[in-house]
């Protein structure tokens, strides 16, 4: 799950962020400004500073925000000077925009604000619709405006060419000031509140944001044109409101609520994709007439409010159709404010203690959550701001024990009474956290003085607070409490080893308060004196960029022992726990014990004889005979242990046919793969043997419960692995593959797999499952494995094994993490036109279902459509998908003359039917040996294939990727020890890309979204990004979609499933000369370091059935004949992806063949390393 950040402002106006993966508040890097309000989205944060100006903070990323400026140079031919910029009077200007209507000289194109910079100078675009143009980039036409072609013809009278220049947003990781809306004719009316939302109103690529603001005079403003590529927006426009507005909140989707100074709430109606500003207001009365609403915050489907008496309210029944909701429900707790973030999670700032609270237990089914839990995360970098030069403050962070004991006992913790009683008052924790980690015994003397000085400085620096907040802010700070005499704090005598012995601070004789948590019991004076290193007092919080989900494990509430802050970044380094002395000692002592107690007594008889263990159960079996159906069967797994300790197992399936009892049996050492859950409605799995693979007819078994299925799968899988003596982490050279359900499989390549003779048939490969869920996986023979999820999240393999349904013994103890994935389910709404009522959902009797799948053959209603399997749950409602190929109208409809036909996005006279696509997101949460590589989401990734004996070990490993937005990226710092690498290097392109592959000799090939290929020149270890792109036209009339480069071979795949081999590649001409057709019906290709070619192919015929998505191995691939001769068919039926790019060993050549290949190899001219 991507880590994301919670944004908050403390009483001193300092902005902090808290990562969902971390446990420390980090001070915002740009600390020049003090803020009153912030409102965050995932990539940016808007705020109002104490100078009443609006700022936007765009988080840094390895991928730049770049926008293309274009200008056209137009020329007309005349007999005297040929093509020249002397145009006719009626013509467009010599320099214009694309329409030709606007004059646009190159030097007249200016940067929109000081926050942008030019990337390079203007240059001519020589790419014309995927095809390269002649030098100069000119395109020709008969006259303006007309259709332009690449070629100059006899009647080409005009020509034009496109100049492009990129500008880049440079003010990232800093607060960029938004020019104020001030009209000199009017009195200044500074902004008072601001809210960002609306990112789910339009689909992803746009990245639209709705930024709403409220001025002190109560006017409502909307920032136009804010989007990811245009983070500042363009201008403020006034939105009429019926009364003076005090505060505003904009949800991620179409909810927008505001509060009025009079205490009612104002609800915006009519917000949708075409009208993000909405159309009208309606008023919602406060829960009680005496206490009006002071603060409101909205999510996707919830509204939370705080009334003037600090009570918290939840609005029932809020959704898109009824944005006003139905009624108020009072919640426990008193808060200054609440904020609804992503996934409708809620944060609040306590009224009494100004501590930060998180609402626990908020789920889609229980949106109001369960309890408020205090966030006790410490702060990492206070001293840099408040001027204390000592490193004392980091001490607490380093040891992770600065949190006081009373902090994490949430009010509703029913177990609290059962807690083992705490020792009496002893050492205040406060003192400990001031201690220096590097010198735990000796630094205590510096403790109190420095601490107080720092606090004093901070107190003085306390900025003027926003309206109404200043009074509250100064309250707790300015009045020292009775228990604050420093003499009571035993600064010396510090014992870092016993932080938990710290007392709760209630001992100081402070009257009991009715605060939400025991934090409220803190004596204020104590708070003041130690405030620097203690929990900050908060003024504002925004969770709009903070993705907390039901399965998230947050470290905000407890202190993790032994974790240094660097672990927050989820690095793959070994955790201290794994290297701890106690663990080593246990391992060592156990070994010694076994030696001591067993070594001399091995001849003794065992007390318990080994026996056959039989596990039996009831499953269902998809019977082999027609009509195929699920029949109830008894199954038994018999495990034998031989004298050598080796295991063997047989699975028996007992069935009854025609009242006759029969059985089939499977030797588990012959099983090649167990594939779970290929049936949507049943907890089933398929079992393949080489014979069953050839038949394309596996043994399908189904269990009644998921638990039962997982038990059987885990047991069978373990037995298969044991009988083949496969265990532990896969070797670095393993072959990885993925099914269409996202399940991950791995196979150990036998050296015979790529042998030149006596090839091992690939239906005999044994595949075992790895936990996790991916769409794509790529590996390298040095053990670096990356994957990409359906939601385009990038993952790196951690070196563990198991996870998912493989728990317990089948899983490694460490390196298994939670992994989630999100994908969409699509259904279609179909309508037919009739002359009376227009388009209706009443079709002809011969028509498809009015709600159907893409083919129209299956009925798919909104209510009846289920997530793809029982592991998935819905996480959104149905919404119209506007991003379908062919385009749509404003309501998402696509038109056609009849079903089934090609659809277009506008209605013509001949269109009698229309359809629109509805999408609904579903989510799966599992575990596996994968860690997220945040934050950039990827479309494709490729790691350099290497020979295991290559002298490169130690060098960093070249890894290229294409982001899901089409940016080409190169990962720096990837190595065996740091497989995740360190940062992305962005490679500029003139159009979005789709696929990339790097060969063993640093040949980088890529495929652009327009279907053409590109070769990157001069990539080498010293120049990892190369220098420029060479455009390579695709095969005629085909659009390429994927490319794979091995040692020397280059293969590409087009959108129609044709596999192409690149001919004529030589060291001096690495781009090659032409494409040669190899095969059709191919879905994915992977070329390995031995130039071996593996594909996923469709329509492979077996003896019993046809399979789609089959792993196939190209046979007869030789240096002289790199295209190979035929196919060997392996595991299949639902495979989507394979990577053989780590498989770099082959059986040695037999003597007869040894000499032969050297000559042709040279003749063919492989690219040399």
């Amino acid at each position: 799950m991507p880590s994301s950040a919670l944004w908050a402002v403390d009483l001193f106006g300092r902005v902090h962020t808290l990562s969902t993966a971390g446990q420390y508040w980090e001070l915002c890097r740009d600390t020049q400004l003090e803020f009153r309000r912030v409102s965050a989205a995932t990539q940016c944060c808007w705020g109002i500073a104490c100078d009443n100006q609006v700022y936007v903070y765009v988080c840094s990323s390895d991928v730049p925000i770049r926008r293309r400026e274009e200008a056209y140079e137009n020329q007309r031919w005349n007999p005297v000077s040929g093509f020249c910029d002397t145009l006719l009077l009626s013509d467009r200007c010599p320099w214009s925009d694309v329409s030709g209507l606007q004059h646009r000289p190159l030097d007249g194109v200016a940067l929109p604000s000081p926050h942008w910079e030019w990337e390079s100078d203007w240059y001519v675009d020589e790419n014309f619709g995927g095809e390269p143009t002649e030098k100069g980039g000119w395109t020709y036409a008969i006259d303006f405006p007309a259709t332009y072609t690449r070629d100059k013809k006899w009647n080409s009278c005009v020509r034009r060419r496109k100049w492009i220049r990129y500008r880049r947003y440079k003010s990232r990781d800093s607060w960029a000031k938004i020019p104020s809306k001030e009209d000199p004719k009017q009195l200044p009316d500074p902004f008072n509140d601001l809210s960002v939302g609306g990112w789910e109103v339009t689909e992803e690529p746009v990245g639209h944001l709705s930024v709403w603001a409220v001025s002190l005079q109560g006017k409502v403003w909307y920032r136009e044109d804010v989007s990811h590529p245009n983070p500042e927006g363009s201008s403020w426009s006034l939105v009429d409101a019926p009364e003076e507005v005090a505060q505003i909140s904009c949800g991620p989707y179409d909810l927008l609520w505001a509060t009025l100074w009079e205490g009612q709430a104002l609800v915006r109606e009519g917000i949708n994709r075409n009208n993000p500003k909405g159309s009208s207001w309606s008023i919602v009365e406060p829960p009680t007439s005496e206490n009006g609403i002071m603060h409101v915050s909205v999510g996707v489907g919830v509204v939370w409010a705080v009334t003037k008496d600090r009570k918290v309210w939840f609005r029932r029944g809020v959704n898109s159709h009824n944005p006003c909701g139905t009624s108020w429900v009072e919640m426990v707790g008193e808060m200054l404010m609440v904020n609804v973030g992503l996934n409708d999670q809620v944060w609040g700032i306590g009224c009494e203690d100004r501590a930060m609270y998180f609402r626990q237990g908020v789920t889609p089914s229980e949106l109001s959550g369960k309890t408020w839990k205090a966030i006790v995360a410490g702060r990492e970098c206070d001293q840099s701001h408040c001027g204390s030069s000592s490193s004392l403050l980091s001490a607490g962070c380093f040891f992770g024990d600065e949190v006081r004991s009373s902090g994490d006992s949430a009010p509703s913790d029913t177990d609290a009474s059962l807690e083992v009683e705490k020792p009496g008052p002893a050492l205040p924790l406060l003192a400990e956290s001031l201690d220096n980690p590097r010198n735990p015994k000796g630094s205590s003397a510096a403790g109190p003085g420095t601490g107080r000085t720092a606090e004093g400085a901070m107190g003085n620096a306390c900025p003027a607070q926003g309206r109404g907040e200043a009074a509250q802010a100064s309250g707790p700070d300015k009045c020292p409490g009775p228990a604050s005499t420093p003499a009571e704090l035993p600064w010396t005598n510090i014992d870092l080893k016993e932080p938990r012995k710290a007392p709760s601070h209630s001992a100081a004789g402070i009257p009991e308060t009715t605060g939400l948590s025991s934090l409220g019991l803190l004596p204020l004076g104590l708070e003041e004196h130690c405030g620097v290193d203690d929990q900050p007092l908060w003024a504002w919080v925004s969770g709009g960029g903070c993705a907390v989900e039901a399965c998230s494990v947050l470290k905000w509430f407890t202190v993790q022992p032994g974790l240094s802050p660097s672990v927050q970044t989820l690095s793959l380094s070994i955790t201290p726990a794994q290297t701890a002395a106690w663990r080593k000692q246990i391992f060592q002592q156990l070994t010694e014990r076994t030696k001591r107690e067993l070594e001399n007594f091995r001849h003794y008889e065992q007390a318990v004889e080994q026996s056959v263990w039989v596990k039996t159960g009831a499953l269902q079996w998809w019977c082999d005979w027609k009509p195929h159906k699920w029949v109830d069967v008894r199954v038994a797994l018999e495990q034998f242990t031989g004298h050598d300790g080796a295991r063997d197992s047989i699975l028996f399936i007992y069935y009854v046919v025609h009242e006759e009892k029969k059985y089939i049996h499977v030797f588990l050492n012959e099983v090649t793969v167990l594939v779970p859950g290929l049936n949507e409605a049943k907890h089933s799995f398929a079992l393949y043997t080489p014979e069953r693979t050839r038949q394309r007819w596996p043994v399908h078994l189904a269990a009644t419960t998921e638990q039962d299925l997982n038990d059987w799968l885990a047991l069978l899988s373990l037995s298969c692995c044991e009988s083949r003596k496969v265990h532990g982490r896969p070797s670095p050279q393993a072959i990885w593959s993925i099914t269409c359900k996202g399940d991950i499989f791995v196979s150990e390549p036998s050296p015979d797999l790529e042998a030149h003779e006596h090839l091992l048939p690939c239906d005999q490969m044994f595949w075992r499952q790895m936990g996790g869920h991916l769409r794509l996986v790529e590996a390298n023979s040095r053990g670096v494995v990356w994957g990409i999820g359906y939601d385009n999240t990038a993952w790196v393999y951690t070196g563990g094994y198991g996870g998912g349904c493989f728990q317990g013994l089948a899983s490694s103890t460490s390196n298994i993490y939670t992994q989630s994935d999100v994908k969409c389910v699509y259904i279609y709404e179909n309508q037919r036109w009739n002359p009376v009522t227009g388009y209706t959902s009443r079709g002809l009797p011969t028509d498809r279902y009015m709600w159907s799948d893409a083919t129209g053959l299956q009925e798919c209603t909104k209510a009846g459509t289920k997530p793809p399997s029982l592991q998935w749950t819905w996480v959104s409602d149905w919404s119209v998908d506007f991003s379908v190929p062919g385009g749509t109208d404003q309501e998402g409809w696509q038109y056609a003359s009849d079903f089934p036909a090609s659809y277009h996005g506008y209605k013509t006279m001949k269109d009698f039917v229309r359809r629109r696509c509805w999408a609904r997101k579903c989510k799966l949460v599992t575990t596996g040996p994968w860690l997220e590589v945040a934050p950039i989401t990827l479309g494709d990734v490729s790691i350099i294939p290497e020979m295991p004996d290559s002298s490169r070990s130690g060098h960093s490993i070249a890894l290229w990727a294409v982001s899901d937005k089409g940016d080409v990226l190169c990962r720096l710092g990837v190595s065996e020890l740091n497989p995740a690498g360190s940062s992305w290097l962005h490679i500029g392109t003139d159009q979005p890309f789709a696929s990339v592959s790097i060969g063993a000799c640093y040949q980088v090939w890529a495929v652009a979204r327009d279907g053409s290929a590109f070769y990157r020149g001069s990539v080498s270890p010293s120049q990892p990004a190369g220098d420029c792109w060479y455009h390579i036209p695709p095969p005629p009339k085909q659009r390429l979609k994927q490319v794979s480069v091995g040692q020397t071979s280059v293969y590409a795949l087009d959108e129609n499933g044709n596999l192409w081999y690149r001919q004529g590649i030589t060291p001096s001409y690495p781009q090659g000369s032409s494409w040669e057709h190899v095969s059709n019906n191919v879905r994915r290709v992977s070329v390995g370091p031995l130039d071996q070619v593996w594909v996923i192919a469709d329509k492979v015929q077996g003896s019993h059935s046809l399979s789609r998505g089959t792993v196939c191995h190209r046979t007869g691939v030789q240096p002289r004949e790199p295209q190979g001769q035929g196919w060997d068919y392996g595991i299949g039926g639902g495979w989507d992806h394979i990577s053989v790019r780590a498989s770099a060993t082959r059986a040695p050549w037999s003597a007869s063949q040894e000499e032969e290949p050297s000559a042709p190899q040279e003749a063919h001219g492989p690219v040399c390393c």
Partner: protein
Amino acid sequence: MTDDKDVLRDVWFGRIPTCFTLYQDEITEREAEPYYLLLPRVSYLTLVTDKVKKHFQKVMRQEDISEIWFEYEGTPLKWHYPIGLLFDLLASSSALPWNITVHFKSFPEKDLLHCPSKDAIEAHFMSCIKEADALKHKSQVINEMQKKDHKQLWMGLQNDRFDQFWAINRKLMEYPAEENGFRYIPFRIYQTTTERPFIQKLFRPVAAEGQLHTLGDLLKEVCPSAIAPEDGEKKNQVMIHGIEPMLETPLQWLSEHLSYPDNFLHISIIPQPTD
């Protein structure tokens, strides 16, 4: 050895070489040879001594045979304690093999429970597991299991089938991701020096402040006499499965990896041997 799973294997396959001799006063028809056996540490005496019983019964008259019981250096051995615990507690400092005396007469009623059949062992074992799960998960895990799962746990122990046992037992070792461990750690601390059979209290694996409790924390809390003062000489050994884990070892980890099959951590406090 890097994987914690190997610890489970080592614990399960721990064996104590034992020499059984018949008590001298037992009346035999001919001389009884001693009987040598490798006893699984994690099992129970009466569960794994069928062979011993058969061996000695061969030399005895039918009428002299009554319930078998075992004794080591004068101490009757409680069958309802795991074998490893009995050995650590009573015999860990003596030479191997472990010499156990076999009795058929004068059953020490006040020291030992009767063990009429394997069902008695099973009942005892299952009640221990249930008690442990009550501490760990408020009994939620064990109650959600089916009868056959309970049976599999027992059969796994009885047949010394590691896989069979752990296929089910792993569920008992899980805890919610948002917690850092079990609710309470099921443990029992045994000392030879006290009258009290063992110490068992409620103790959480995680301190209120979030730090993981260690073995040392546990002992400090419930059995302070077991640990040596800072400067003082080490007087006791703290032993589980024949090894002495460091006091810094997190208790949760110990519970997950060094518990006996009954899901309890059986910790022996024994006087430091004076060499």
